[in-house]
């Protein structure tokens, strides 16, 4: 299987535009720097050739944009979806957030995206990055040309990728991948083994850095309410000036709780956080608990599945049976 390249995707998309199968294309657009790729809509072959990119920085999950984009036009829109994006796509369909028949989903293969924070940790003066398969060639201004191991530059979400399988697509430009067993709960387990005091200090240090920019909420494909609790001026979570223990926890518990059973573990929240807060650990804690208490459940694996919080079993355990301070009895 040949590697998915920008040119293959452009010619595919342009072909579908020409045949009027789709009226526009939702993809990624080159930015000013090597790593600031942004989601964008393209209407013609020229626009695609001028701006479209597909490289190691196309981490942005495009599925959430379909909500607004499908409403703009009667025609179909083409969207590129990496394996993990297809879970969000399905979850949005489950929640009836956009009409399926207005979308042409093109599944693209993925070997993991790169984390620009990890690249910057190696050199501050990166000009460009070239993918050589197992390694990455990084051209810098002051540190020369570096060849780095690709695996070490992957973000956590790709190092612990849950699935290379596309669970939704109209057409696939990739080999059909598999669901992976990637130890994605090991960090959660490490925290669970700590004492309550240690956990408290860990989270206090992490969450107190939050600047309440709401990027984690805005990017999340599970956060699609038109009116959000956090937009309420009385919510009392936007008042960083008198920050203390409560404010951060309120925001983060509520954010994570609102996506319980709907979070597909796509990792977008952690990717966009300018403060590098490991938000995925909060989501994964919920996912792990659901798996333990209510049976394994993967949001977005199928369309129409019932989220664990809108379901029950009369024999579910009581909180007092399964939770003690620090450890679970199960």
């Amino acid at each position: 299987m040949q590697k998915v390249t920008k040119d293959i995707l452009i010619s595919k998309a342009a072909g579908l535009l020409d045949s009027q199968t789709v009226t526009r294309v939702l993809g990624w657009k080159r930015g000013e720097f090597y790593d600031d790729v942004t989601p964008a809509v393209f209407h013609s072959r020229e626009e695609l050739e001028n701006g479209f990119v597909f490289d190691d920085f196309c981490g942005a999950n495009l599925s959430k944009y379909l909500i607004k984009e499908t409403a703009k036009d009667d025609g179909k829109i083409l969207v590129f979806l990496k394996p993990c994006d297809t879970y969000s796509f399905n979850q949005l369909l489950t929640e009836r957030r956009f009409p399926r028949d207005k979308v042409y989903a093109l599944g693209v293969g993925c070997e993991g995206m790169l984390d620009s924070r990890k690249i910057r940790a190696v050199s501050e003066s990166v000009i460009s990055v070239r993918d050589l398969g197992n390694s990455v060639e990084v051209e810098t201004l002051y540190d020369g040309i570096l060849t780095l191991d690709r695996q070490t530059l992957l973000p956590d979400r790709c190092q612990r990728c849950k699935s290379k399988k596309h669970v939704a697509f109209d057409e696939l430009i990739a080999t059909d991948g598999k669901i992976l067993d990637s130890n994605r709960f090991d960090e959660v387990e490490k925290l669970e083994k700590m004492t309550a005091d240690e956990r408290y200090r860990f989270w206090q240090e992490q969450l107190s850095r939050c600047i309440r920019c709401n990027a984690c909420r805005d990017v999340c494909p599970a956060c699609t309410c038109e009116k959000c609790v956090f937009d309420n001026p009385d919510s009392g979570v936007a008042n960083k000036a008198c920050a203390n223990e409560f404010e951060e926890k309120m925001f983060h518990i509520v954010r994570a709780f609102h996506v319980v059973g709907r979070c597909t573990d796509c990792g977008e929240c952690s990717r966009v956080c300018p403060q590098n807060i490991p938000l995925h650990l909060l989501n994964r804690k919920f996912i792990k608990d659901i798996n333990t208490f209510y049976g394994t459940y993967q949001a977005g694996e199928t369309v129409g599945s019932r989220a664990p919080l809108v379901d029950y079993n009369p024999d579910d355990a009581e909180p007092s049976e399964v939770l003690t301070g620090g450890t679970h009895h199960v």
Partner: protein
Amino acid sequence: MPITEYKPLIVAFCCNWCSYAGADLAGNNRLQYPADVKIIRVPCSCRVNPTFILRAFQKGADGVIICGCHPGDCHYTSGNYYTRRRMTLLFSMLDFLGIERERTRLEWVSAAEGTKFAATMNDFVKTVASLGENKRLEDLRCKK
């Protein structure tokens, strides 16, 4: 300043159909439980969303307890089953953030269980009292 015994402030969300009636029965039977338990009546235990609990802590509660009908007896048939899942996950998350596990509790109290209501509250107050003041979910802006 006189040394006063520390008395925790407890917020108890009680569903209208069972636990609130249970509290009433406890009162009618003159069963003793601390006056620092503030009862908030809700139509069903599943009316309590996580924000209520967090807000209670924010406004000064040291412990929060949710009481509802026994599983199978919810006035709305299944409300308390949802409550149970939600609270299990929420309590687990609070614990994950290092907030004392014993500050939150879920208990089923029927309209006939006045004695259980009083006993539950006495026990919960004792547990929370031993933890001391809620510091990990306090909001300085709300301190009197």
